[in-house]
């Protein structure tokens, strides 16, 4: 009993002594932080997704205040947040083009062939690691929705055909789905772009035809018809240079496989020719 009291009193007074010392020290060594850091952090989305390249929103706010990060560096907040951050920092925001995720595969259950049954966990990454999954096309969407599961903003869902669909209004271009996809099918593209080559297959035309009815067969018609030279051929796959594409839709009209797709509701773009 006696020991208990002595222990309690001695340890208690020791702790009180140190607490007092620390209290005095915290007053003496109080650090004045940049008030803008807190303000910026206030207008940021606060999801700590890391898409800006900093370790969370507070680190990004500190980066902006110290000039290490651009005011429009938050892809999730987009132009609205960029404007607010710019006004806190007292600079003009040079406007950040909003980007959204695009799914570059059209081969759902109806279009793409299966090459077998897969009974494993319903996860694209696991399916991909299991002999490349059950789809005959080794480049196409596996359809188990890892991207949808990764999305923190309810901006994706799986349609009945087994393909992910992006709800562009909700998409924040955080890039989580891009990382989640084992096949590299998802890409972040400027929102204004409406023409997309929805295929990632590097197979030659003959083999593409064997496995999928909407894959790129590398016929080069789009390359020839493109007035701005935005489409080029690489490894049996037509690719688009979004810096040059003006949404003119010539390629959409000639694509025999309907691989190139036009998204309704997007406007023609005027672009300065890039040499």
């Amino acid at each position, binding site marked *: 009993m006696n*020991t208990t009291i*002595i*222990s309690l009193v*001695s*340890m208690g007074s*020791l*702790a009180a002594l*140190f607490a007092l*010392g*620390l209290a005095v*020290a*915290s007053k003496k*060594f*109080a*650090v004045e932080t940049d008030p803008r850091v807190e303000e910026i952090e206030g207008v940021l989305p606060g999801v700590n997704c890391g898409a800006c390249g900093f370790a969370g929103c507070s680190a990004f706010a500190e980066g902006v205040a110290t000039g290490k990060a651009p005011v429009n560096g938050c892809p999730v907040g987009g132009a609205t947040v960029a404007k607010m951050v710019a006004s806190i920092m007292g600079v003009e925001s040079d406007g950040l083009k909003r980007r959204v995720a695009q799914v570059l595969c059209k081969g759902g259950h109806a279009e793409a062939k299966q090459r077998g049954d897969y009974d494993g966990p319903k996860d694209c990454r696991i399916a991909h690691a299991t002999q490349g999954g059950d789809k005959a096309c080794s480049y196409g969407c596996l359809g188990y929705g890892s991207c949808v599961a990764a999305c923190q903003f309810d901006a994706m869902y799986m349609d009945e055909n087994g393909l992910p669909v992006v709800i562009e209004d909700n998409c924040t271009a955080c890039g989580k789905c891009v990382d989640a996809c084992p096949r590299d099918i998802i890409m972040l593209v400027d929102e204004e772009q409406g023409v997309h080559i929805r295929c990632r297959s590097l197979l030659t035309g003959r083999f593409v035809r064997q496995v999928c009815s909407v894959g790129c067969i590398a016929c080069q018609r789009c390359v020839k018809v493109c007035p701005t030279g935005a489409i080029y051929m690489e490894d049996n796959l037509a690719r688009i240079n979004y810096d040059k594409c003006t949404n003119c839709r010539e390629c959409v009209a000639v694509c025999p496989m309907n691989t190139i797709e036009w998204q309704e509701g997007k406007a023609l773009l005027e672009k300065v020719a890039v040499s």
Partner: protein
Amino acid sequence: MSLFTILLSALLVNNFVLVRFLGICPFMGVSKQVDSAIGMGLATTFVMVVAAAATWLIQWFILEPFGLPFLQNMSFILVIASMVQLVEMFLHKTSPGLYRAMGIFLPLITTNCAILGLAIMAVQNSYTFIETVIFALGGGLGFTLALILLAGIREELQLADIPKPLRGAGIAFILAGLLSLAFGGFAGLV
């Protein structure tokens, strides 16, 4: 044992990191740059010296007279944690760059086993107050030395062509092992 022997023993022969294998966590964590390694080493040295002095007082004026040796770990940790808090505040005020470079490893000095180990060893060896402080100083400087040695080599290694699987932590562990072997050469000096 003379004071010099105690200092040399703690600094080289029984180096806390490379011979006793205490405090490995900051040793691997804050040894990427010599600058932050020096800062970390000095901060740890400061905490060691102050904590060792305070724990000596607590041990011989509170714990022993009142028969409370079982409270040793608790009270020592209390001292160390308070000292680390103090150092953290001080660094945040005086050197924000260093504060940021050390990051999470600064508050983690609290759980650096080298410091608690040092305090307990000083008690076990029944050192006098002066001996305890010298022992802590030697231990801290030895820790700093180990950190700087590893950081220096790792800085050079930035430019070296290291096999891919060994890059980063892998090669650092191998280096730490080699350094430890090298320090084995001091055995028998004291």
